[in-house]
Each structure stands twice: as C-alpha cells, then as structure tokens.
C-alpha cells in the first residue's frame, strides 16, 4: 500500500487547518472512543462558503482528505459545495485511495455535511435537517 504524491502533499502541507472562533456551522464525524475523527467549521457569507476550517485525528488518508475537501469547497456556493461527492474528493486527491482507506472520504464528507446541517438548523432556529447525506446519500 502506498499513497499518491498528492495525498502526501496534503498530509505534510495541510490546507485550512483549524477551527473558526465563531462558525456559522460546525460538524463532527467518526468514533471518538478509538477511531478516526474529523471536525469541520464553516463561515457562510451570502450563500457562499467563505471560510472552511478542519481538524482530523486519524491516518494519513483522513488528514489528506480533510485538507483536500476544505480546499475544494472554500469559496464555492453553499449548494455547489453541498453537492460535492466522494468522487470529486477522490479526483482532488489524484485518484482512488489505497484499498482499505476509502473510509477517509466518507469521514470528512460526513463532517462537512454535518456542518451544513448545523448551519441550516441555526438559520431556521430549529432542527430542520437531520441525516442529510449529501450527493452520495
């Protein structure tokens, strides 16, 4: 098993790392007990994803996928970003991840979608969206 140079590049120079101090939405996915964890926070201005920050604990694929996803969607319209699929993310990483590492795509896409859910719920002032699974759902 070995990773593409694009994955290693995102691992050693991860983009958009961190957490927004006052996010418009935030979401977490993974298994806090012992597995990988991803957390995304987003800032939305006029339906555009103005700021995206992420944090990941996990294998190299998870870190790289988080970085690539944050880079991919920052600056996109909210609906455009919400339609981003695992396949788009795979393309951004230069192609399929090594066998057994595909969970990394799901982990970070889920966390971003949960951040969107949180944003829409806050906007509506109530739980409006639950279990939104994005373009892959």
């Amino acid at each position: 098993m070995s990773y593409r140079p694009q994955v290693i590049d995102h691992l050693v120079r991860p983009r958009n790392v961190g957490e927004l101090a006052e996010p418009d939405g935030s979401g977490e996915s993974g298994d806090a007990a012992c597995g990988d964890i991803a957390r995304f926070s987003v800032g939305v201005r006029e339906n555009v994803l103005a700021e995206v920050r992420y944090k990941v604990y996990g294998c190299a694929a998870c870190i790289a996928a988080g970085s690539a996803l944050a880079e991919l969607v920052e600056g996109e319209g909210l609906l455009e970003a919400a339609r981003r699929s695992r396949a788009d993310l795979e393309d951004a990483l230069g192609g399929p991840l090594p066998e057994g590492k595909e969970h990394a795509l799901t982990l970070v896409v889920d966390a971003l979608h949960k951040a969107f859910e949180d944003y829409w719920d806050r906007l509506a002032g109530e739980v409006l969206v639950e279990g939104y699974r994005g373009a892959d759902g």
Partner: protein
Amino acid sequence: MESRVYLDHAATTPLDGRVRDALVSHLGEPRANPSSLHGLGTAAREVVEEAREAVARLTGASPREILFTGGGTESDALAVLGLARAAVAADPARRHLVVSAVEHSAVRKAAEHLESTGYRVTWLGVDGHGLVDPRELSQALRPETALAAVMWANNEVGTVQPVEELARVCREQEVPFHCDAVQAVGHLPVDVTEVPVSTLAFTGHKFYGPSGVGALYVRDGVELAPVSFGGGQERGLRSGTEDVAGIAALGAAARLAAGEREEWARRERELRDRLVRGATAIPGVELNGHPAERLPNNAHLAVEGVEAESLVLFCDASGYAIGKGSACASAGEPAGGEHKASPVLAAMGQDERRAFSAVRVTVGKDNTPEEIDGFLEAFSGAVAQLRELSPLYAGRG
C-alpha cells in the same frame, strides 16, 4: 519520496558491504547443487558447511545443531509445528502449548493454527513493560505440554525477556522450549550453552545479512518433526536445494557479528539513548517497553494525540524512515477488515488509542549522532503539526 536517513533497522538492516561481497562472489561462481557428487557440488557443499560453522560459533552451538531455512518466519514455523508434531507422535496426549501473548505473528499464528486443529494453548500474559513472569510459565506447564515458546526480545517494544530463567523452568519440567531470537541475534549476546533453549530461530537480515535466509538451532537430542518433505536436506528437517550464495552471505554476516557485535551494540545504545532522551523531552511522548531490559537499538514511543501512520509518513517526507509502533493485526487480511492494534500493546495493558499512537525508531551501527539530532528536530516538528491538526489535542500542546 526518498528517505535519506534509515531508522527502521528492526524491520530489516542494510546489507553490510562485506556481506554483499560474499553474496555476489558466490552468485558469480559456477552454480552447483551441494548434493551433487561432482567437484563443483562438493565445493558448494563446503561453502554451506563453512557458513554453518560460522553461524554455530555466533550462537555457541555445534554446527550439526544449525539448520538453514528460508528465514525467521520459516524457522519459527518449523520449530513450533515440528516440536508439536514430534511430541504428539511420542504421546498422543501431548496436545498443549504455552505461548506468550507478545510473540511475533510467526509464532503466534503457528500456535493459533495448532489451536484450530485441536491443540490447547495457554497464552502467557505480560506485565506493563512486556515481561513474562517465569513463575507463571512454570505454573502453566503440564505433563501434556508439547512445547513452550517465549521470544528473546520483542520486535515491537524491544523488551528483552528473562530467557535464561524461562528456559531453565522448561528444562526442569522437561518441556521443549522454543525461542524466537530474530531481533536478538547480532544485537545481544545469544549463547545456547548458557541458555538451555531447545530451539532458537533467527535470520540474517536483522544483522546486516541477507533476507530470505534464516537458521534454526535445534539442540542435540531434541525431537523435531519435519513440516516439509522432499530431498532430505538439512538432516531431513528442511528439504529443498540450499541457497548457497544466501547461506554464504549469512555465514559472512555471522562472522562479522561474532567479531563486532559488542561494538555495534555499544554504538546502538548510545544513539538509542540520545534518541529516547530527546524524544521523551517532548510533552506527551513516552517510552514503551522496559526502560532497561530492552534491545540496544529500539526506541518505541507513544505519542499522545497523534496517529502513527501520519507521523511515519510525515517523518518520511522530511527524510527519515521509521516504523509504525504497532504491527497492524489486520495486515494481509481482506481489505476493509477491522483496523486493530497488534496484540502486543494490548497484552501490556495499553488501550487502542495509545497503541495507534506508537512509532518504532530503531537505530543501526552506521547511524550517527548528527542523524539522530536531525531526526529529533523533524520528529518534534511533525508531532507539533499533527497535534495542531488533531481535534483531540486542542489547547493541550
């Protein structure tokens, strides 16, 4: 990316130049089968027997007690399966094994294989440092025990077992004792005249010799059944035409180790201590395994808040080749299998999160203090960056 500094010697060592010369010169010779009657065959036989003498001298054995095999894993399999089959052939009731919980998978899975065919296995636990208690071994042995197996030194955390005591316990109770010494030979004094093992497995590529060639010491008088069949080479215990060049190279590595091991170990220990001092000065980095009773070349580090694979690849990108600390239990199993830590750290009482945070840094005779200092700088930078990324480590670095 090319790694410039190699710090993964427990995985395999570079071939020493003098061993490479032996290998190449024998590859270049006219090929002959050591079993052939003609002069070329006799010459090939002499090469094999000279290597056998060198390997025997390194371990305090007699040449006739050394079998050449295809490597450490094969030596372990031959010992575990061969001792078990010989025991059950002598007495059908002898279907019980005692095996430590921290064995390399070569021994562990051979024992599990026997377990699946009706043998009972008592798995010996270890303490927090990874040590087996000789009293527990003694209590686990029964009249129907076919063999006990405890490794000389652990391939992950580097802990060195009280093998002399363990082997004596087995000898007193007349139970064959197998010792996997793959990590020990060439790094620690391993002498079968002092440690009454029945069988001892080791391989060339952990002490600057070739991979694909190993040895099994079988003490005179120990009953071992073959597990492969054919031309009857190696006293009928390991059939198959000998790899003459590989065996010659193993012999060359054994001669080097016999003369230079103490100096290698002194250098390894100095570099290892420098590395451990520097690494454990980083908050949240701790040494796994026994602080004193450990391999001279092994630093096994638990790094809080970081996942090992990311850290290994991060160090690799900075030019340092190190190993993951926990051999993945699911390696080689179908893709998508459960991500599990190896049983070693679990047996030592560590939780999965800590097990997945461990890296293994193993130095070699040709590393320098400057390389260690360079590594420590890259390592602390990598740890800091990965912690910054981690949602689990927020506000603690």
